[in-house]
């Protein structure tokens, strides 16, 4: 595995006190945490800093890490022969280290899980929870979908030896999920130890934008462009909805900006009433008019008493 210099990442000396380690971490966490950072590679930097902190803040892990010796950043290393047994990170068979990251080694520590057979041991341990970000299309969110997910996870056996294994999950996403929602998949997290129950899987959903429909919770919005005569005289238009086309009656005298409501044609979900679809009216004019059309418009202008700027007034009191 590749060596990472945790002290260098935190910008501290190898002899730094626990307080100095903590202060260094807090400063860098504030600087690089994606929720508050303005730095351009914040997420990657934060991950690095957090990994360094989680190893160096614990006295046992820090001692174990120091025992790996000093190496160049990125150098390929293997823990010394006795390392695993001494620090109880499992059997330490050489083959196991190739596909692990440095951080995987230390993740096994703590909580009584490691330390080999000396682990206090027969109580079952619930598996860890996993969290994954999942992106789905508008259609998948609207209708529901069955997804096949597969991500690599760390699993620990009885002795605490870590292995990277694939973790395939087939999930049924219920219909009507919205962007930013969290779903829980019970029992599909990490394996439990000693017959402990498995952990859960949490899915952070992102729903891709649709080219035409905009979602606001369970309500949907779609732009409805109308020609001026359609808005004045009223008309019937064919409107797309996620569930198919419908005919919408546009009343005479419809104004720009009005929202025509199609009840129940928004996003539906099993445990709540369906939202509505709103057709958001825009009056659009042709950019080019033939001479004949311009003649007609001039006639209309001359024959109409309509004043669109009546409310703007001439200034001063009447």
């Amino acid at each position, binding site marked *: 595995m590749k060596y990472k210099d945790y002290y260098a990442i935190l910008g501290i000396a190898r002899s730094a006190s626990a307080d100095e380690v903590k202060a260094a971490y807090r400063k860098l966490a504030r600087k690089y945490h994606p929720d508050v950072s303005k730095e351009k590679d914040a997420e990657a930097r934060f991950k690095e800093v957090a990994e360094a902190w989680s190893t160096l803040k614990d006295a046992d892990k820090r001692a174990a890490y120091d025992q790996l010796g000093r190496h160049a950043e990125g150098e390929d290393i293997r823990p010394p022969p006795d390392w695993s047994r001494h620090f109880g990170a499992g059997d330490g068979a050489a083959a196991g280290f190739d596909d692990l990251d440095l951080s995987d080694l230390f993740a096994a520590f703590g909580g009584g899980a490691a330390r080999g057979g000396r682990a206090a041991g027969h109580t079952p341990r619930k598996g860890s929870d996993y969290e994954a970000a999942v992106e789905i299309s508008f259609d998948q969110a609207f209708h529901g979908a069955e997804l096949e997910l597969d991500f690599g996870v760390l699993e620990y056996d009885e002795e605490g030896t870590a292995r990277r294994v694939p973790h395939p999950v*087939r999930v049924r996403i219920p219909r009507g999920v919205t962007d930013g929602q969290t779903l829980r998949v019970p029992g599909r997290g990490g394996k439990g130890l000693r017959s402990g129950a498995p952990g859960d899987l949490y899915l952070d959903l992102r729903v891709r934008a649709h080219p035409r429909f905009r979602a606001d919770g369970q309500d949907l919005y779609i732009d409805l462009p109308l020609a001026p005569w359609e808005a004045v005289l009223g008309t019937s238009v064919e409107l797309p909805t996620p569930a198919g086309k419908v005919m919408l009656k546009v009343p005479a005298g419809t104004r720009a900006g009005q929202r025509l409501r199609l009840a129940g044609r928004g996003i539906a979900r099993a445990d709540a009433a369906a939202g509505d679809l709103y057709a958001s009216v825009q009056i659009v004019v042709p950019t080019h008019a033939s001479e004949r059309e311009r003649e007609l418009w001039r006639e209309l202008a001359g024959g109409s008493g309509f004043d669109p700027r009546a409310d703007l007034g001439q200034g001063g009191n009447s």
Partner: protein
Amino acid sequence: MTPETVDALWLDQSGVYSLAELAAMSGLAEDLLRELVGYGALAPVESAAPAWTFGASCVVVARRAQRLRVDFDIDTHALAVLLGFVERIDALEAELRALRARLPR
């Protein structure tokens, strides 16, 4: 071999959980959860009831609290304050999304 298909469950709306379940799902200790309720950062369905129950939206808040606590290494009081600000950010983002949905393209 892929295991059989399982249903993903709603988290934000329905479902009620005990304090112990909330602790298990968030990774926060029960004592810490009690403190957060005391600070007003988490609201049980009925605070006067002898055994608290929490709506599923509390699971989202509790999980976020755990992440913030670990990421920023902060004490409970600061955490409660931080959760309040995050709630405001969530509300603002929701309002933005709603307004953007109504704007024509």
